[in-house]
């Protein structure tokens, strides 16, 4: 009897602990407490994983490889089931996602405790920040050698403003003349920017993306834990979105009217796959 007793205690303790940890999840939301929240931007290519320097084909059957993929994410907002929105303070809400730096796929912010059903953010740097003084451009928005954007070349010096989506690679079908890549390197370069203009209106390619989280998992934010909304970013949609793009016909897209066709494909890239809630350590997300 006494032998079994010890095992029983162990089981009891285990059950108690399990119940306790379950209970913790249901603990009342205290909006004065802040929890960790991240959006994970996992690049994919159609139904395949995304890899740099890996050959894919677009809808026009053009084979291509990607060498550079960087984009800015900003202005993260969360909405709960009651329709209340929390806007992350703008200055804490700028991120540069770089395909060659896996750790950059998470945008880590602090938000009040809550069960959030809708996520929105801006693909790009909001227009207002594009017009601000240098002292208001910190972190990824700065030219800092360690934290800034310019290592990624995400800024137009000639036409002040951020390149917010930079997508470069090669396609062997690109011609070697002025209509293709005269250097003979078969490169395509998509540098998408345009925030609406400073003193004269012009194109605005920035996109606000809104995703419903309730189907694949609300973000349950609690103090001491992290909630991670895991998105798929389907890069194939750059060419194969509502606008079907030929790389051979458009090997270079920069500041031009045509760039709007690319930008209008951006919203179709984003989907919410799942949410990891009550995460205690970032290792759980790797």
């Amino acid at each position, binding site marked *: 009897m006494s032998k079994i007793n010890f095992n029983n205690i162990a089981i009891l303790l285990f059950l108690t602990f399990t119940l306790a940890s379950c209970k913790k999840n249901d603990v009342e939301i205290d909006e004065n407490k802040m929890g960790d929240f991240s959006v994970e931007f996992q690049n994919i290519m159609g139904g395949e994983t995304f890899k740099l320097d890996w050959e894919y084909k677009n809808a026009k059957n053009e084979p291509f490889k990607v060498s550079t993929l960087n984009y800015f994410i900003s202005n993260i907002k969360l909405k709960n089931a009651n329709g209340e929105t929390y806007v992350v303070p703008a200055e804490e809400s700028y991120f540069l996602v770089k395909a060659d730096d896996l750790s950059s796929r998470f945008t880590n912010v602090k938000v009040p405790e809550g069960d959030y059903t809708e996520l929105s953010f801006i693909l790009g740097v909001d227009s207002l920040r594009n017009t601000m*003084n240098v002292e208001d451009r910190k972190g990824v928005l700065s030219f800092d050698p360690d934290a800034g954007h310019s290592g990624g070349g995400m800024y137009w010096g*000639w036409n002040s403003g951020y390149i917010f989506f930079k997508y470069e690679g090669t396609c062997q079908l690109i011609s070697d003349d002025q209509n293709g890549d005269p250097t003979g390197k078969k490169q395509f370069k998509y540098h998408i920017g345009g925030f609406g203009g400073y003193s004269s209106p012009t194109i605005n390619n920035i996109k606000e993306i809104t995703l419903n989280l309730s189907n694949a998992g609300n973000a349950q934010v609690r103090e001491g834990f992290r909630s991670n909304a895991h998105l798929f970013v389907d890069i194939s949609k750059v060419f194969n979105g509502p606008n079907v793009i030929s790389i051979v016909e458009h090997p270079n897209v920069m500041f031009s009217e045509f760039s709007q066709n690319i930008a209008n494909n951006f919203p179709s890239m984003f989907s919410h796959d799942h949410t990891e809630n009550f995460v205690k350590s970032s290792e759980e997300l790797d």
Partner: protein
Amino acid sequence: MKKIIVFLSLLFLVWACKKADEVLPDTFLGFVRPSNFPEPQYDLSRNGITQAGFELGKRLFYEGRLSRNNTISCGSCHIQSAAFTHHGHDVSHGIDDRLGTRNPQPIMNMAWDKEFFWEGGVFDLDLAAVRAITSEVEMDETVPNVLLKLRAHPEYPSLFEKAFGTPEITDERFFKALSQFMLMAISDQSKYDKVMRNESGFAFSDEEKAGYLFFQNKCSSCHSEPFFKDKIYRNNGLKPSVINDLGRYEITLNPLDKYKFKVPSLRNWQYTSPYMHDGRFLTIERVLEHYRNGMVDSETLDPIFRNPDGSIGIAMTDAEVANLIAFLKTLNDKEFVTNPLLSEPTIGSSTTIN
């Protein structure tokens, strides 16, 4: 022997004093708004000009490390004797002898500008340097790499400390120091300025007066006083260049902006030849001839050039041209192009370039 040593030391002292004098005048006055100029556009409360900040900015302006191979400084193409343009070059001439497509604009009276470059692509003086640094045909560098080079330099951290309190070299401090130098490049000592300020001993001659009247009637709606530009983008009827430079359109993508360029200042024109956005005209006479007789019509030609009889351009008699040129000569400011405050530090001075 002793006497010789004393004499030599005195000589050295005199020489040393003289060197220091060459660097800066006795007192640094900071930014002083000329009485015939309006309030500046640049917000000086964000970036108060100090002697240390200005000196750092000046050193950076003449610093070759801003370019990929450390050969080209801002001062390479913005030469003081040419009112900070690239005299004798129709288009900018940068790294590895690469050529740009536009004529470098003068750096003067920048505090009163709100947009920069011929098509106004940059709207903040603090961000103007990014354009030259990152341009493949100018400096072909990146700003982060420039900051790394400055951080590794034996003197810059202490120069930044003098200017900003701590030795950190950040993008903000780098840009602001450069702006401090550029903001101090004020041209306000032309004869025109002195006449306007009623300084004693300065008056227009009869010819200049006649030219000034003509100017006010026919030119000043675009070349507005006191900067002799109106900060507006206009098509002045130049035949499109071989490269078909579309000007302001490149920034706005608005078809109505095709072939429009920012009206340039006429100040210091004597030092800034050649003229127009691509430096196509070599003399002021040729420029005036363009307005008199050489304009090309197009959809975006500025309506100000359209005359009631259907012709385009500005009619001028030879006498009017002569008077106008006499007046325009009063816009040249020799003190500006020779001011030691703005000059490239010479070897041996306290701000030697290494």
